[in-house]
């Protein structure tokens, strides 16, 4: 395995300095295989259960699949043509953009404030942190179901509260109107994204050394100036990581829409994720066309992952 200590910091690309010439081919082979018992199982599990579905998905997108799931032969680009002929596709894609951008932007802005609050000193801060964690730990599906119930036309507390404070004068059937339903579902998506995001920002805030603020104070910088000139720039790495992970999570968000409106009426509140699911598993069910949608979605996510790799500064060598 390792016999040198100075191998520290030498990237993975430079294998440990080769011991003198006499290394036999057998020993070299032995060295190359040495990591296998350690990392082999992980590679196998990831390949079999995470990567295989990717390949299977791409393959399915060019197959003709019957509604019972049997493969009837190849179809070439037929599934993709069906997909692009869907009259709802354009509006679904546009809505997906609004959904992702809107939810992530609001989440980040609110989390910046929340992170400050959770970092400030006041009695009971611990308990406030615990409270903020709750939607992170709880099932998103169950959280979405509570909101659905709270938004109920007849029996929901949202109508009762809004009527009580005079914002509306009679109950509103929130989830039956696409625009209002979208607004509420975006709020629920923000609600479940806030804990993770504000904890990333809190973690970022805690890495900023106190003396940086001390120096700013000595220089006579005001509070706003300190925040925009020092805190925010130093938070940049945390913000970028949080933003990209949120974009991917929100893009993949399924339970909220599926539980609250089912993407309906029609597909007026679908994003491309729920749309993909419905193509395969509702009505006549076309798994092939759904796979085509999934491939399109996946390509978008891959682009995001590449951006993410750039942001975390992956240079093809060991991190830390």
């Amino acid at each position: 395995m390792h016999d040198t200590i100075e191998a520290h910091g030498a990237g993975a690309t430079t294998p440990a300095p080769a011991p003198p010439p006499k290394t036999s081919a057998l020993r070299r082979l032995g060295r190359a295989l040495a990591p296998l018992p350690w990392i082999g199982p992980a590679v196998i599990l990831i390949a079999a259960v995470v990567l295989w579905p990717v390949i299977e998905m791409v393959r399915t997108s060019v197959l003709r699949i019957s509604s019972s799931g049997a493969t009837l032969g190849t179809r070439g680009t037929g599934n993709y043509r069906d997909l692009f002929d869907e009259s709802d596709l354009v509006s679904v894609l546009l809505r997906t953009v609004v959904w992702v951008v809107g939810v992530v932007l609001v989440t980040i802005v609110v989390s910046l404030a929340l992170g400050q609050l959770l970092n400030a000193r006041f009695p009971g801060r611990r308990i406030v942190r615990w409270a903020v964690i709750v939607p992170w730990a709880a099932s998103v599906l169950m959280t979405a179901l509570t909101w659905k119930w709270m938004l109920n036309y007849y029996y929901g507390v949202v109508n009762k509260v809004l009527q009580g404070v005079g914002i509306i004068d009679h109950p509103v059937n929130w989830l039956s109107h696409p625009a209002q339903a979208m607004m509420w579902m975006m709020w629920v998506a923000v609600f479940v994204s806030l804990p993770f995001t504000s904890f990333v920002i809190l973690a970022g805030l805690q890495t900023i050394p106190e003396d940086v603020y001390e120096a700013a104070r000595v220089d006579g910088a005001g509070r706003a100036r300190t925040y925009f000139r020092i805190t925010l720039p130093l938070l940049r790495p945390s913000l970028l990581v949080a933003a990209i992970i949120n974009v991917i999570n929100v893009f993949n968000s399924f339970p909220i829409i599926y539980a609250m409106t089912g993407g309906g009426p029609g597909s007026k509140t679908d994003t491309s994720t729920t749309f993909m699911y419905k193509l395969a598993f509702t009505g006549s069910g076309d798994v092939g066309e759904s796979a085509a949608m999934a491939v399109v979605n996946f390509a978008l996510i891959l682009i995001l992952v590449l951006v993410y790799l750039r942001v975390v500064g992956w240079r093809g060598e060991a991190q830390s």
Partner: protein
Amino acid sequence: MSGRSTPRPKDRQGAGDGAFVRRAKVAILAGVGYLVAFVFIAPYLEMALTALKPDRELTKSPTTFLPKHWDFANFVNVWKAAPIWKNMQVSLIVAAVATLIALAVALPAAYYTARNRFRGRGAFLLLVLVTQMFAPTALVIGIYREMVALNLTDTLLGLILVNAAFNLPFCVWILHGYFSSIPKALEEAAYLDGAGKIKALTRVTLPLSLPGLVTAVIYTFIGAWNEYVVALTITSSPDRQPLTVAVPGFVTSYQQHWQYLFATSLIAIVPVVILFVFIERYLIGGLTAGSVK
């Protein structure tokens, strides 16, 4: 940053005045904090209050915040209303076994990559980092097709494999971070004291990386416990569905038992929230370490 207690020069003008302003600031902060806490808890409070209402109060308009009659029996009756005991067993088995597998596979990989340089190390870490971003939701069609091909639809094994594999990258990543942060010299000191490799690992490295281990375990367990899309897609028999898939069944076009739906939800949510609170302080550390979801 307003909560910092370092006195500013101008606070000295009148000691009483400065102290008062400071105290007022802390009070305002605390007030805002409790309000925020309430907003985050409110939906779950409504869950609890609804779970405690009798049937007739659920369909009363306008609704009331508190139950008029507190029906604690809902939490007893719910076990008879549906086979949720079975669903809970499924959730528990899937989450526990998936966590065990993920950990058993992640530990050696994370330890080896943290301690050794070898050909392919960078590629392996890249694989981990990239697959960490793959969500089962995006791949559900592929997972479904694979499970059909392997004849694993409607089995616990299928659910276990998916949950173990998709949480594995996170486990490798966080454990790798912890192992890397423990100086090799500590293990070498143990060798000098006559400890073997295994002993050095179990007596020195593992105890020091306990926070990482606990975080990986709890995070994976909760992820599997809450998983919905894959379970919804590949299971069909009621007694092989986890709680997340079973719970919505209380409210359909045929029956509307919101009180049972929320009673079951609370039974599912409360234990994992408590678990999560345990890893709160490590989460902050783990998130700072870099790219962790």
